[in-house]
């Protein structure tokens, strides 16, 4: 488990090989949501995952992020092979290794912007002061320093999305998964958010998958991967 970092330098953020996800429906029929997906991300690579609705984008991200277990295949994030992880191990993995920006609900309504970042520190072993410093620094970078005390209901859509990005970066993840981060924003705001995501990822050297069905924002990423009916096409 604990390979010394000096011995094997991790050069990939994500390795998925032949990952399948099959849902068995109530009537016994199978829905193949992801079919033999193989995908590798360099440790600071930003990939756009593009495909129509229902093509398996969210499923892929959920499996890569340890929210969903694959039916078969191998998934390695950073130096951790999560293919055989139990639910408990996956919880710990999500806590430590990945950042999420979900399609819909991203913030806890009764926590202010700063607390929505700090809550990440409360999930595992508390670090206290370093977490506070990190939260303040992230809010600063995201242009939210003066909004730190605002509740989500007091923020605009773009500001909320920026808080969510900050939250996703709080645990210094190896991989950040953005599921349609701009779909709820207008074009201009969407571009600003993509700009911000790119800056944050590149300045940290963090890998990311950005899910979208909007071809116009793919140029913020290093490359695009297309998915149709659960199958990846480069």
């Amino acid at each position, binding site marked *: 488990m604990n390979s010394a970092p000096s011995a094997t330098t991790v050069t990939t953020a994500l390795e998925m090989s032949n990952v399948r996800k099959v849902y068995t429906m109530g009537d016994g029929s199978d829905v193949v949501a992801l079919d033999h997906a193989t995908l590798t991300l360099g440790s600071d690579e930003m990939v756009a995952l593009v495909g129509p609705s229902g093509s398996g984008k969210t499923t892929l991200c*959920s499996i890569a992020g340890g929210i969903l277990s694959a039916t078969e295949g191998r998934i390695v994030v950073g130096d951790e092979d999560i293919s055989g992880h139990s639910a408990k191990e996956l919880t*710990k993995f*999500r806590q430590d290794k990945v950042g999420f920006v979900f399609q819909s*609900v*991203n913030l806890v*309504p009764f926590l202010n912007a700063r607390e929505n970042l700090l809550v990440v520190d409360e999930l595992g072993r508390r670090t206290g002061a370093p977490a506070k410093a990190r939260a303040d620094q992230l809010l600063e970078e995201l242009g939210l320093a003066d909004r730190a005390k605002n509740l989500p209901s007091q923020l605009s859509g773009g500001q909320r999305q920026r808080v969510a990005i900050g939250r996703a970066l709080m645990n210094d993840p190896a991989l950040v998964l953005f*599921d349609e981060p701009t779909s709820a924003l207008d074009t201009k705001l969407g571009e600003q958010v993509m700009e911000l995501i790119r800056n944050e990822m590149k300045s940290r050297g963090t890998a990311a998958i950005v899910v979208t069905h909007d071809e116009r924002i793919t140029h913020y990423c290093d490359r695009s991967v297309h998915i149709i009916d659960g199958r990846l096409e480069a």
Partner: protein
Amino acid sequence: MFLAFKEMARAKVRFALLIAAIALLVFLILFQQSLQNGLITGFIGAIREQSAPVLVYSVDGQRVVQGSAITPEMEAQVRTAPGVREVGPIGQGTFTGKPSGNADGETFDTTIIGYELGPDGNGIGAPTTVVEGRLPNADNEAVVSDADVQLGYGIGDSVTLLPGAKSITIVGVAQDAQLNVSPTLFVSYETYLDAIKSVNPDAGTPLPNVLGVVPADGYTAEQTVTSINDQSLDLDALTKDDAAAQTPGVSQVQQSFNIIFLLYGLVVPCVTGLFFLIVTFQKANSLTLLRAIGAPAGRLVSSLLIQVIVIVGAGLLIGTLLYYPVSQQSLGGITLRFETSAVVFWSVLLLSLGVLSSLVAARRVLSIDPIEATTGQGVGS
């Protein structure tokens, strides 16, 4: 901790309302507990707070002191029963008393209990806990129950029995020694007989109502009770605690209160459980999100339990604080008391039931699947 307290701080009104509801219920429970104990103490306190470990009634008296009468033959049977060391007659009557300490000159139904004083006033049937003054050591002296002092039955005051002019002087105050929720005087047996003659000169000498019995060495009160009851079918011997508890009316009062307490014991956890279940449903989105970003389910459940304990604890604290001043009052002749054991009992019970009732909400938290965070619509909303 962080989540539990942040949430409560952001929804102060909602959580404060629950605290207020629980505090009110706690107050009512404790108040009624005091009322029950005060009522029963006023009703039969004198039986518990007198010195004879065993009391013998006649069977046809049906465990009411005033309804019981002990004939000389019965007394002889008691005296000869194994396990009996000493026997003393106890008589009880209800009179119209006019205490000199009452500024308005009011009269009260006054219970007089006569017992044989013995050399120092500490004979069989004497009040056990004199908190002020002394026991009577002569005729026409009395110890009064503490609840009656405020009506004008103070030490040094005299009580005139009407009609007639019989006067009794109060020399001491006994704790919790009322009978029939009325002012109660403990006097010598002679004084008791005189009192009856003073209001009804034609009455003959009445029989003792009950006998107080001290068990012989080597006999427990229970053994002496059995031994006396074996003597005759007309004798009804009881330990003093049984005599108190089995006085007609006592168990009915207790049962009525127990039903009330049972209802409260159900309402509090229902209110708490329902509240936290609703809150859990309302924040299902947040809980799902937190699970998805790596919150262990146990962490979210402990956050819930912390809230339950804080809310119920605050309700208990405030309810008890409200109860304290009320428990220092007396209510229509019934002395209330701060019942520490009731506070402890209900605190432990309501905290446990509160936690138990929130397990439904906890189950809901545990059943959250983090994958729901990835669905476009969001869950629970």
